[in-house]
């Protein structure tokens, strides 16, 4: 009789029992307290790949290029870093990049905030869905394809210029300049910024805004004194992400800048693949990583991690 019931046990149960036994064997109860570590280890190992790669990068950056063989010399030296400091061109590229990143961050936040605000506050669910889809679609289409789209619109023989010519007007240089790169970056960063600002706006009760307005603040003042300060975690998070992403971008300066507006990423790429000087490129990479980390650390120290923290 008991045998028959055992036969009728569903396969799932038997399988699950086996699994439990295996789990007990591999991870006995006394290790239960360390389960967190068991769960996190794969992620730690995966990110470790990046760290090892960075280790190689640091090692490369400490060797000078031997111009007779085009390989790195064996001796350790800081010459690559000295070279970066001594060559004014790298400082120029750095400043150009930082200025662009600042402009992009300011413009993106300026556009992203109303977008996020309207998306959260609108009573119409159809409008909300439309705004969400319009945001996700470009986000999912990818940078290269979007840059290509802008190339068709703004290019030398692009749509705007052909229309201008047909109307007998002179063609405009809309592309391969600083402005095109900044514009390209703004539209590329917009979805990131909106998605990071949205949770912060959701967290602000609409009644608080209404209270401010009913106490006599006009909407601009309510915005400035109530909504913006309360949305600060989202703005900081979005600002940091937009700034670091645009500071290190490669595709927009290449495609929409056409080589006229080199950013740091382009300089790193060129050191590796045009100059074949991996030592110099590695040194430039290390400088970029250090600079980015310092900037992020300062912002977080001043304002907190905002919406960026994993643990809420």
């Amino acid at each position: 009789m008991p045998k028959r019931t055992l036969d009728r046990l569903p396969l799932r149960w038997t399988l699950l029992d086996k699994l439990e036994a295996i789990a007990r064997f591999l991870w006995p109860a006394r290790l239960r307290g360390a389960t967190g570590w068991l769960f996190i280890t794969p992620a730690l190992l995966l990110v470790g790949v990046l760290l090892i790669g960075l280790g190689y990068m640091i090692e490369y950056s400490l060797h000078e290029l031997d111009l007779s063989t085009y390989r790195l010399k064996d001796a350790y030296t800081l010459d690559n870093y000295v070279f970066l400091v001594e060559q004014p061109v790298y400082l120029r590229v750095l400043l150009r990049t930082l200025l662009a990143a600042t402009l992009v961050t300011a413009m993106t936040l300026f556009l992203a905030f109303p977008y996020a605000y309207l998306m959260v506050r609108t009573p119409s669910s159809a409008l909300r869905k439309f705004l969400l889809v319009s945001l996700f679609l470009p986000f999912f289409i990818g940078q290269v394809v979007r840059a290509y789209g802008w190339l068709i619109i703004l290019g030398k023989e692009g749509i705007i210029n052909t229309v201008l010519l047909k109307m007998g007007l002179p063609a405009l240089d809309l592309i391969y300049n600083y402005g095109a790169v900044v514009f390209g970056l703004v539209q590329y960063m917009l979805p990131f910024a909106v998605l990071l600002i949205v949770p912060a706006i959701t967290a602000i009760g609409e009644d608080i805004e209404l209270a401010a307005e009913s106490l006599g603040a006009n909407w601009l003042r309510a915005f400035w004194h109530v909504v913006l300060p309360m949305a600060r975690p989202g703005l900081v998070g979005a600002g940091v992400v937009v700034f670091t992403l645009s500071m290190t971008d490669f595709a927009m300066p290449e495609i929409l800048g056409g080589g006229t507006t080199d950013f740091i990423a382009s300089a790193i790429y060129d050191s590796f693949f045009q100059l074949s000087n991996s030592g110099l490129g590695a040194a430039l990479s290390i400088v970029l990583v250090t600079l980015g980390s310092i900037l992020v650390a300062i912002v977080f120290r001043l304002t907190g991690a905002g919406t960026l923290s994993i643990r809420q």
Partner: protein
Amino acid sequence: MSLIPSKKWVLWSLVSFSLVTLSLPTIIIIGASFTSGDIIQFPPDGFSLRWYERLWELDDFKDAFLRTFQVSLICTVVAIPVGTLAALATVRYRMRFQQTIQVYLLLPFTIPLVVSGIAMMILFGEIRILGQLWPVGIALCLINLPFMIWSVSSTVNGLDPELENAAHSCGAPPVQTFFAVTLPAVMPGIITGALLMFILAFNEFLVSLFLTDARTVTLPVQIYNSIRSVITPDLAAVSVVYILVALLAVWLLDRLVGLDIFLKSR
């Protein structure tokens, strides 16, 4: 929300500008891909499907598409267990060095992609796996891993720990509790994360640029390489493939978990 007219006007003019910049490239690409002329111009020469026919004959792009699909699949399959477990660990379990681990797990975001890409190119070159396809998938999983962890951890936050305790006290052993209680509860986060991972790997460009060669080139890199020369409509037809895939992803995301999930406060 009853809007004051001036507020409504300011909001809408800014949002309309954003909407145009977000959507214009997509619309133009779709339009350009149907032209019957040899070059892209406005107004277009006429309607035809010839560039799609040509696309079907371009084996380069077809192969690159299949490779990209493969790479994205590898990326997603690796990301699901790794990211889910990491999210559970960081939110659910008390661990020492919690702060350090968080900073460490965010490294893929804090290290610029151009640096990550070259660093992995150097590493993969040293251990002689450069030029294969699977390391590209692993690399793309690595650089986007925080997205997966974020998606899952936001649902873990909403999961009541008492549910797991209840399962325990009803006699469910740990593995059963995990599969019957924990996993279903965080499923929306896993689905969101997996979709994000797939689509981001599908259009990832910079890291793929460093890790692929002529034999393993993926579609975004192939498009980038072709942009350099003259702008012809065949590239627009390829780009439409991306638009369709993105549409499919948005639709799936909305059907499976609802786009509104991104509007929650955290």
